[in-house]
């Protein structure tokens, strides 16, 4: 079952095979990988989808607490015509808003009827906390209704004075929303892209550290280096094994999303099915460079650590920087600059976003996004090989 190893590829295969057995028997590594990969992503997505669903429900059956609405009977009638149910607001409604119990409260000024009778604008006040995401839909809805009432009232006055309402509305705004059905659920899209990246970056972490820093810590590296395995063959074998695990983690994560979106009883939030097998395939194609690059980098960092712990703390800085990239990119919002495609992680993220918008992957950019990671993989692997041939690697704990 084991081929003779008088050649470098055969020795690499022996190392890779042993490492794969070793990795897949490691319960801790497998558990961490499986939990973060398969469970966390889809569960988070379900939560987000439910949140979106609740928000849209809220708008549909908005209950608006009001103060002094009897001073503005026309407004009251208008709001009720718009299917809003008006309830008297509690005394301490400001505290209610701060605590999140109330989304928005409408207060009609005490002098409203008087001001209106004198031809002055009547004052109404909206109280809300815009920093709360869940309240935003309700706030926007009430604001829009008040604007509509304002318009209607104004039109009525103009018509009474014999003036065409168009006189006061010289600009007619027609808007066309070019968002495809896919691009509307932006948060869900970001979540899937982020988790795909996350799996590709983190999938091999525990295994990579275990097979390098762990091997040093367990004192099994020194005897291994007295066998005919060359340092670069050793690095390559370990890299193949960790890459396989990484690919498995990515595939499981994406399959988790696919199955969740396909079969889970999702609340209807107006997002059509957006992550099908075509998207899954494009994701894998876009993530291949990271799936191969990250294990090489992780092995390098792992090799520099004398113990698992030491390597782990070295890693946290690197991983923090990497996970920050797509978040920064999301907040940039503008069109991505062209050079971004060259940068590992960022390049992959923009390709993933395009895949999620339902676009095919452009060949040229795909090729671009492969080049730097490929180069870095070779550099990192040779660095690992050089570390394995250094005497300092023998220094144990």
């Amino acid at each position, binding site marked *: 079952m*084991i081929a003779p190893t008088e050649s470098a590829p055969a020795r690499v295969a*022996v190392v890779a095979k042993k490492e794969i057995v070793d990795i897949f028997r490691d319960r801790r590594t497998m558990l961490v990988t499986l939990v973060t990969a398969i469970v966390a992503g889809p569960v988070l997505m379900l939560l987000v989808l439910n949140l979106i669903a609740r928000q849209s429900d809220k708008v549909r059956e908005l209950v608006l607490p009001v103060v002094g609405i009897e001073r503005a009977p026309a407004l009251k009638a208008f709001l009720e015509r718009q299917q809003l149910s008006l309830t008297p607001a509690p005394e301490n409604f400001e505290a209610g808003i701060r605590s999140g119990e109330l989304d928005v409260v409408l207060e009609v000024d005490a002098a409203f009827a008087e001001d209106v009778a004198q031809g002055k604008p009547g004052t109404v006040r909206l109280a809300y906390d815009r920093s709360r995401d869940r309240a935003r839909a309700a706030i926007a809805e009430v604001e829009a209704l008040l604007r509509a009432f304002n318009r209607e009232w104004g039109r009525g006055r103009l018509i009474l004075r014999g003036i065409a309402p168009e006189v006061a509305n010289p600009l007619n705004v027609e808007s066309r929303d070019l968002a495809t059905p896919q691009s509307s659920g932006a948060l869900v899209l970001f979540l899937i892209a982020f988790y795909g990246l996350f799996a590709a970056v983190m999938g091999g972490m525990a295994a990579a550290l275990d097979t390098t820093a762990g091997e040093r810590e*367990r004192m099994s590296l020194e*005897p*291994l280096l*007295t066998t*005919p395995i060359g340092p670069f063959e050793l690095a390559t074998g370990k890299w193949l094994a960790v890459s396989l695990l990484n690919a498995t983690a990515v595939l499981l994560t994406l399959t988790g999303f696919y199955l969740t979106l396909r079969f889970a009883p999702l609340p209807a939030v107006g997002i059509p099915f957006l992550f099908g097998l075509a998207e899954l395939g494009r994701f894998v194609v876009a993530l291949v460079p990271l799936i191969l690059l990250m294990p090489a980098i992780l092995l390098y960092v792992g090799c520099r650590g004398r113990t698992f712990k030491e390597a782990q703390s070295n890693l946290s800085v690197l991983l923090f920087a990497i996970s920050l990239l797509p978040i920064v990119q999301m907040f940039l919002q503008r069109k991505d600059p062209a050079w971004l495609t060259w940068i590992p992680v960022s390049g992959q993220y923009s390709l993933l976003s395009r895949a999620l918008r339902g676009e095919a992957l452009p060949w040229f950019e795909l090729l671009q996004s492969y080049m730097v990671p490929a180069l870095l993989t070779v550099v990192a692997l040779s660095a690992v090989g050089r570390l394995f041939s250094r005497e300092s690697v*023998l220094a144990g704990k």
Partner: protein
Amino acid sequence: MIVVENLVKAFGRHREVHAVDGVAFTAPDRAITGLLGPNGAGKTTLLRMLSTLMIPDSGSARIEGHDVVNERFAVRRRIGVLSDARGLYPRLTARENIRYYGALQGLAAAALEARIDELVNALGIADIADRRTQGFSQGERMKVAIARALVHDPQTILLDEPTNGLDIMSTRALRTLLRDLRASGKCLLFSSHVMQEVTALCDSIVILGHGRIVATGTAAELVAQSGESVLEDAFVRLLGSGEGLAA
């Protein structure tokens, strides 16, 4: 056969720590050569150079005619090393640990399995051979590490403090094994800081102190050379200090 000529290895920023400083000796086949010295005498560094893990600053060493620097991979096929570090893979069984090294040494499947069975029986670890090595006792670990080092039936065997942490039964079993290996014509180089070990086993002894060879010879020759009556006193006298006792 191991031929060592003027090996030098220094550590530190300015190479100020002379771990091995001009060591020369020959370890013949069909013999156990003992490397005796207190802690820090340079035994492990010397063995690491012989097992191609470290490159000497100067001097040379040849194992079965192959240079440890320029022909390191040829050397690695010919040596079995039981180093100071003898970590096993805890998630692999004893048999899998041994098989890994055999495969890396280029043994073909059938021959490898036969050889593993042979070693498992010789070392008396048949009952634990298919268990994962996690939780093995010191003695069990040592036996697996020895089987792993001997899987390709090397002509030259390097052992760094092999009896460290072993109980008397395991130590005796190890001695028997080493004598058997000698009888089959192997060249064994064995380091220790325990005099009884060395006297019990070795055909000739090389005493190291501060990276230099202090004396060589059989146990009897060393005793005669120092003018003492027992080897321990001879050892201390030859090192020229009381540091042998601290070992």
